[in-house]
């Protein structure tokens, strides 16, 4: 059945009619064109679909859109500030060459934004644990951790 959902997505209020069985990943990609939200395992294991729901990282593939009614969502598209200017987490990923094929990158960026927004500092080992919900098959994670260390500051 179709349900009307109200969400605050990347700074804009949206009203959508969605099927009750629709995942938040599908709604964000197919109805709102936010294709930074990747479809990887679709079982909550790889983290490619990670978005921030009320500031917290969530696997949007196993989250129904109807549950997001009344909530705030942030994806990589919502990080854009002035034209051509990257978010500090994105810039750090570029500077540290933390991107190879790029498929895991949007999800990792969102977890990176969550970590940066916490305002705390972390050890490399703690950062490793904080990104443990993401699979990257290219980089071996080292450059990703270098990038995150640059943004959050070392403990």
């Amino acid at each position: 059945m179709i349900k009307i959902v109200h969400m605050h997505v990347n700074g804009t209020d949206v009203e959508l009619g969605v099927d009750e069985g629709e995942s938040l990943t599908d709604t964000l990609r197919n109805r709102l064109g936010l294709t930074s939200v990747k479809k990887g395992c679709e079982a909550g294991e790889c983290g490619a679909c990670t978005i921030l729901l009320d500031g917290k990282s969530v696997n949007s593939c196993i989250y129904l859109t109807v549950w997001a009614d009344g909530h705030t969502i942030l994806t990589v598209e919502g990080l854009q500030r002035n034209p051509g200017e990257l978010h500090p987490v994105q810039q750090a990923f570029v500077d540290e060459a933390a991107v190879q094929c790029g498929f895991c990158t949007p999800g990792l960026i969102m977890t990176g934004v969550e970590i940066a927004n916490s305002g705390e500092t972390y050890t490399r080992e703690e950062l490793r644990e904080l990104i443990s919900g993401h699979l990257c098959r290219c980089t071996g994670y080292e450059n990703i951790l270098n990038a995150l260390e640059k943004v959050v500051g070392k403990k």
Partner: protein
Amino acid sequence: MYDIRKTYSASSVSEALRLLLENDGATIISGGTDVMIRLKERKLKQAVLISIANITELKGIAVRENGDIAIGAGTTFDEIYRSEIIRECVPALAFAANQVGSPQIRHVATIGGNICNGAVSADGVPVLLAYDSCLEIAGVSGIRTQTLSGFHTGPGKVNLDQSSELLTTIVIPRAEYEGYFAAYYKFGQRNAMEIATLGCAVCLRLSADKKSIDELRIAVSVAAPTPLRCRKTEARLRGAPLTNQTIAALRKGVLSEVQPRDSWRASRQLRLQLAKELSERAFRQALETAGGEIV
């Protein structure tokens, strides 16, 4: 697209119970990290889902007037991990909560779901078993309480009438945690996003002179069709001195009480080895936090 016929969102326990009664075969869902996987694997079809994620009375951790710790069934693992009350009174539970899945999973997955899902590998269960926790379950005729020990009746099966009952609260009684020290060890093939190959929680209280075991509880997961308390070993070691002989008896005792099976995740032999090893490690760690020493 998930195979969902209808979704409801309850705003109170009574509304959730009413929706359960009105919808035959409906499934209670909160974080959804288990139920959505069952839907994806088509083990659950044409689902009618009743979300309890918006019920505020099911959320949060509080110390009751009598000193009991009450954890709302809808409390997420992330909230448990961060809770000052949990870190202060039952730190092993904070540790165990942080062993579940990944940060993204822990932001939505709840302790109540972890228990009611009935998985023999649930990370939330061994520590709660070792603290002799109780469950408060709401039904049409009011609230009933039962011990967590005995709640699991088989793989994926729990003593809950899924058509009319709802787990509301997990209670760790003051008498079961005050003066106790616990530790949880989990073995998995990797450090994150991993289902336990075997898990063991040990909770103990030492005698006043810290020279012997006053009270001991051992809980093991993935070592039998349900999470298990090793009651014979617990009884045998009550009053035992803190010696290497006691640890040898602990290993032998646990080994005699577990009944692990071969699965694609691990062999029975590996699990038997893990039961011995993890029970010793959890015991030693609990002992260390309790301020005891092996002599």
